[in-house]
């Protein structure tokens, strides 16, 4: 990752280079395949227990956002932003180990799904309590602003989460303090079974930006290039002292809320409509048309992706479950017990 440098003045809309475009397609496909393995295969085989949430159909949001992050930036993904972890350097092996509760996963089996964090790699994970990472992002941004390296914090949350007080308190605080944080709403039309009309009474949540005195824009969340440029503008603004932004990414949850939810409450035609807007073929077509990638290269990527996932799953399955005796370790951070992120001296 490149070093963040506070650019002089406001940048123009960022455009991804060919290399970045390929990486975006790669991460889109990798995310899609990895999550299919999780909810379609491992969960059904009983190899993953507990709640299982995936971001199928909305992968472009995490990819188009996190791909732009620089060293020192921090992302706080939602429970559906699998791609952010990959882009920030978590390996598939680590991630699958965590999903399967293995001792060598990043949480040592203490927490599940994508509750995976590592400050060095710039990822702070959610807790299940929706919206709680928004204030945390403000605190992160306070520090980034003070350090003056032009770094930013990116926090994702669903449209249902915007109803929680913590999101409000955080957005207001960020606006008052002009913090370099970008609030990204993954608006996938449902909060569990709750449609947007039961969640809020405005057409676009983007209008919330104006209520706090920050830019609020909506973008097609299934168009990774649009996400890239809109979020990119917000990031550029934040890097150069322009303060926070709110970005509403319109997308759709192409699965149930979790693996056990058949989503019977979602009208069938919505799935068929949104299938057409699948972000992956959209980018793939564009890249083929622009001759940025050839069909052959894409095949290679798909091969590579399948192998990586097979490897990671095999690795995770072969990894040990935690020793039950470790249950009581690491409640407190002391010299004996803590395995990452020592506080700066």
């Amino acid at each position: 990752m490149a070093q963040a440098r506070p650019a002089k003045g406001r940048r123009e809309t960022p455009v991804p280079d060919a290399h970045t475009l390929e990486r975006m397609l790669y991460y889109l496909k990798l995310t899609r395949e990895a999550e299919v393995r999780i909810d379609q295969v491992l969960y059904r085989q009983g190899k993953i227990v507990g709640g299982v949430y995936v971001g199928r159909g909305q992968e472009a949001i995490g990819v188009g956002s996190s791909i732009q992050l620089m060293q020192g930036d921090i992302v706080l993904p939602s429970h559906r932003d699998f791609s952010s972890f990959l882009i920030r350097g978590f390996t598939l092996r680590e991630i699958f180990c965590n999903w399967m509760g293995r001792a060598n996963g990043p949480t040592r089996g203490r927490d599940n799904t994508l509750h995976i964090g590592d400050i060095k790699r710039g990822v702070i994970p959610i807790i299940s309590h929706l919206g709680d990472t928004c204030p945390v992002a403000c605190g992160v941004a306070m520090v980034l602003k003070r350090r003056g390296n032009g770094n930013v914090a990116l926090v994702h949350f669903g449209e249902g989460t915007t109803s929680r007080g913590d999101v409000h308190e955080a957005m207001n605080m960020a606006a008052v303090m002009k913090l370099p944080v970008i609030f990204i709403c993954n608006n996938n039309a449902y909060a569990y079974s709750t449609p947007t009309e039961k969640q809020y009474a405005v057409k676009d949540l983007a209008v919330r930006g104006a209520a706090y005195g920050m830019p609020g824009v909506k973008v097609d969340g299934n168009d990774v290039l649009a996400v890239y440029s809109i979020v990119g503008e917000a990031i550029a603004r934040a890097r150069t002292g322009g303060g926070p932004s709110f970005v509403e990414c319109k997308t759709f949850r192409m699965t149930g809320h979790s693996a056990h939810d058949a989503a019977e409450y979602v009208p069938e035609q919505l799935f068929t409509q949104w299938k057409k807007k699948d972000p992956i073929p959209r980018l793939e077509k564009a890249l083929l048309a622009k001759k940025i990638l050839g069909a052959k290269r894409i095949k290679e990527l798909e091969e590579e992706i399948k192998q990586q996932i097979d490897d990671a799953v095999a690795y995770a399955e072969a990894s040990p479950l935690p020793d039950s005796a470790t249950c009581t370790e690491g409640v407190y951070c002391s010299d004996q017990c803590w395995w990452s992120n020592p506080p700066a001296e």
Partner: protein
Amino acid sequence: MPLLTYLEAIRQGIWEEMERDPSVFLLGEDIGAYGGAFKVTAGMLERFGEERVIDTPICESAIVGAAVGAALMGMRPVAEMQFMDFISCGFDQIVNMAAKIHYRWGAAVPLVVRGPSGAGVHGGPFHSQSNEMWFVHTPGLKVVAPATAYDAKGLIKASIRDNNPVIFFEHKFLYRRIKEEVPSEEYVVPLGKAVIRREGTDIAVITYSAMVWTALEAADVLARDGVSLEVVDLRTLLPYDEQCVLASVRKCSKVILLHEDTMIGGMAGELAAVIAGKAFEGLDGPIVRVTAPDTPVPFSPPLEARFLPSVEKVVEAARQLASY
């Protein structure tokens, strides 16, 4: 008598109160058409309509606060927390608004906040918590935690009829694992009354919720080697049934305090103080606590198994105490 699961018993209890009293209504996330994350309220929207089965946005504090407002207007709201873990987001409205109104200005606040709590289903640190003590320590609230289907129905009905804010902890591990014959005739189980689940003579085990079953299993095991456990199910944690607890301790003269919640500041402490204060002469051995260790609830099955008090742990503790 019809066979009902613990979950069906709760549904039936709420349903009957909705039929009986038009002032009873429900609010919460995904409780309407979807019937709730665990389907406790399934069918209620169809039967009682949108005015009495209200889907809300994701806002626990507003859900509880709105329940208080409706209760002040003479209604009897029943608010669902999708998981009781998330009650921390509505915490302030419960402990400062709901709990203190009657003491401050004499208005009744008849409401119920209910939902699934407890571990054992690999839910991880945020879908497995036992959060009853925050509320047991808050004067003005009542706290209920049923262990059986019969009690779950009778207690939810009593909670809805109570004129005070009641925090009702359902144990998600029991939802579908327990099936009992539950009378179809009208009944309620009064708040504040414990019950002796098994008579015994050597050691009183005071517990509640899912751990009642752990205690009963342990009692079977111990019976074989001649140690007789008495199992007391508190059912209501606030106000708790001091008389029943003290009587059982005096009878057995030894006591094990058992709960799934973590140890420090847990219910076992409160009970220990009351026992060591009022039944001191009756005690023939140290007061023993068997609880979860003081950690968050870990996700991975081996860790979660270690976290949860087990039949083995109760048996071991009882054997030691018996030989004291």
